[in-house]
C-alpha cells in the first residue's frame, strides 16, 4: 500500500473507539537504542544508514512483518511527511530528518516504529479509547520480537539508555488523548492541569505546536521513566486519567443542569458556522468541531456520530486536505477546501 492508500483509510485507532466520550486514544511509546552505536542526532550518515539496515533485518523476526509498510524520510515529499505526522504516525522531529530516518507502520496504523528519530528506535502502539494496558501489551510484544535481532544499549542500573536522560530506564512514554471542552468552558481546566502536573505527569495540547490546545484536545503522559516497572507507570497514569475524565463528565453535567441554554447556543452556533462558512482556518475548524463533538456526547445533535467528527479532525488538516485534492494548495485555497469539506459532510447528515 502506498501513502495514498493510507489516505483512503481512517486510522485504525479512530476506527473502533469504545463509547467513551472524553477519551480519544491511548498510546504507548518505547525508546530503544543499539549498543555501541552513536545516537542519531550525533551520528554520521553511515552510522544512521547502518542502523536503518539493522532494523530492516530485525523486522524479519516480527511475526506479522508482512503487514508493515515502510518509508524512508529522504524518499518522501514534505507533504507526505506532513501526512504521516497529522495521522500521529511520526513525530515532527522525524519528519524533519533525512538520511537513515524512516518509519514502519502496520496496516491498521496501530503500530509504528520510527527509526533514527532522537533515539535509534521509537516504537509506538496506539489504541482507540481508554486502552493503555492493551497498548502496552502490543508494544511489549513488538519490542520482544525486534529485540531478537538487535542488541539494545542497556545498563542494569539505568535500564535502556536513551539520547535524552529524561527517557532513560523503561524508555516508556504512555499517554492518553482527551477531549475536555467541559473543563475548558467551566474554566476548571487550569486547576486540573496544575494538579496533574504536580504529581509528575505532563499535560500538553494535542494539536498545534505550543502547549495551547486547539480543539480542546489534551494529552496526558508520564514524565518519570526510571525507578518504576512499566505496568506501575501505566496503572498510575490510568488512575489519574480516569479521575480527569470524571471531572470532565461532572463539568458537562453541571453545564447542562445550570446553563443548558448556553451550551445549546454554543453547539448550535458552531454547527451554524461549520455548515455555512466559505473560509475556515485549521484552528477555527478544530475549535468548532470540538463544540460539535461535545454536542454529540450530550445528545444535542441527534444525526451525528462521534466517529465521523473524529475523522474530520484528521481530514481538515493541511496535508490531508492537499493529498485529497491531489495538488499543493495555498493557505487561502486550503481554507476554502476545508470549509467545503466540512459543509459537504454536514449536508450529508
Amino acid at each position, binding site marked *: 500500500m502506498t501513502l495514498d492508500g493510507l489516505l483512503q483509510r481512517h486510522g485504525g485507532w479512530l476506527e473502533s473507539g469504545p463509547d467513551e466520550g472524553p477519551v480519544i486514544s491511548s498510546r504507548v511509546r518505547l525508546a530503544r537504542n543499539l549498543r555501541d552505536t552513536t*545516537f542519531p*542526532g*550525533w551520528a554520521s550518515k553511515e552510522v544512521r544508514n547502518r542502523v536503518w539496515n539493522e532494523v530492516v533485518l530485525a523486522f524479519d523476526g516480527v511475526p506479522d512483518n508482512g503487514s508493515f509498510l515502510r518509508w524512508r524520510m529522504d524518499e518522501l515529499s514534505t507533504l507526505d511527511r506532513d501526512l504521516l505526522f497529522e495521522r500521529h504516525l511520526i513525530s515532527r522531529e522525524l519528519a524533519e530528518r533525512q538520511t537513515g530516518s524512516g518509519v514502519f507502520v502496520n496496516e491498521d496504523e496501530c503500530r509504528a516504529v520510527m527509526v533514527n528519530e532522537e533515539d535509534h528506535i521509537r516504537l509506538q502502539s496506539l489504541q482507540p479509547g481508554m486502552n493503555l494496558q492493551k497498548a502496552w501489551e502490543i508494544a511489549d510484544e513488538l519490542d520482544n520480537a525486534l529485540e531478537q535481532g538487535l542488541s539494545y544499549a542497556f545498563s*542494569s542500573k*539505568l*535500564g535502556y*539508555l536513551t539520547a535524552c536522560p529524561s527517557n532513560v530506564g523503561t524508555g516508556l512514554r504512555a499517554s492518553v488523548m482527551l477531549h475536555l471542552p467541559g473543563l475548558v468552558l467551566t474554566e476548571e481546566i487550569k486547576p486540573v492541569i496544575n494538579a496533574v502536573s504536580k504529581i509528575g505527569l505532563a499535560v500538553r495540547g494535542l494539536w498545534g505546536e505550543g502547549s495551547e490546545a486547539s480543539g480542546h484536545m489534551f494529552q496526558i503522559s508520564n514524565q518519570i521513566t*526510571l525507578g518504576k*516497572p512499566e505496568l506501575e507507570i501505566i496503572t498510575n497514569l490510568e488512575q489519574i486519567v480516569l479521575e480527569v475524565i470524571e471531572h470532565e463528565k461532572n463539568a458537562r453535567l453541571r453545564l447542562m443542569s445550570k446553563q443548558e441554554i448556553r451550551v445549546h447556543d454554543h453547539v448550535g452556533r458552531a454547527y451554524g458556522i461549520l455548515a455555512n462558512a466559505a473560509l475556515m482556518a485549521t484552528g477555527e475548524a478544530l475549535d468548532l468541531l470540538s463544540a460539535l463533538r461535545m454536542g454529540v456526547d450530550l445528545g444535542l445533535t441527534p444525526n451525528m456520530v462521534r466517529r465521523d467528527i473524529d475523522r474530520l479532525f484528521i481530514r481538515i488538516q493541511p496535508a490531508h486536505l492537499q493529498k485529497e485534492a491531489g495538488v499543493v494548495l495555498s493557505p487561502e485555497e486550503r481554507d476554502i477546501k476545508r470549509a467545503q469539506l466540512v459543509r459537504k459532510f454536514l449536508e450529508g447528515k
Partner: protein
Amino acid sequence: MKCDLCDKEAVVHMTQVVNGEMKEVHLCEEHAIAQGIDLNSPISITDILMGLSGPQKNIAHELSLACPRCGMAREEFRKTGRLGCPDCYKTFMAELTMAIKAMHHSGQHLGKIPAREGVQTKVKSKIARLQQDLEAAIAREDFEKAAKLRDQIKKHREENTPDDGSKK
C-alpha cells in the same frame, strides 16, 4: 602508536581523567578535532606534543571534557541536553547521576530487561527491586517483612557470588 578510536596513526597524546581515573589517550587528527581539540592553535598542539604545556592537571581537566567513544564534548552535552552515544552515560556520569535523580527521583531501573542480557543483570535487577521493597518495609515499620526481604537479598547475593575457593 595508533589512535584509540580508529586504526590511523595518533598525532595527539594526552592524559585524560575518566571517572576519576587517569587514562592515557592517543588520537588521530580527525578524532582529536572531534574531541574539540584545536589543531590549528599552535600553542596548545605543540605544547601537548612536546609535553611543555602548563600544569598537567589543567590539561587533564580540559581533556576529560569529551566522550572517548563518540567524541561528544561536555560543552555540547550541556548545550543540547542530549547525549552522543550510550557510552556518554559513563563519560558524564557525575553530572548525569544528579540530573537523573532530580528528574526521576530514582537511580535504579526496575522495569523490563532485554532477553539478551545475561543472568548477572537479571540478578542485579532482582536484588535492586528487593532492596527497594526492603526500604519501603522499614519506612512503614513492618520489620517482620523487612527481615524476610533482607534474608532474600542475602540469599540472592550468596547464590550469585562466584565461588573463589576461599570458603570451606
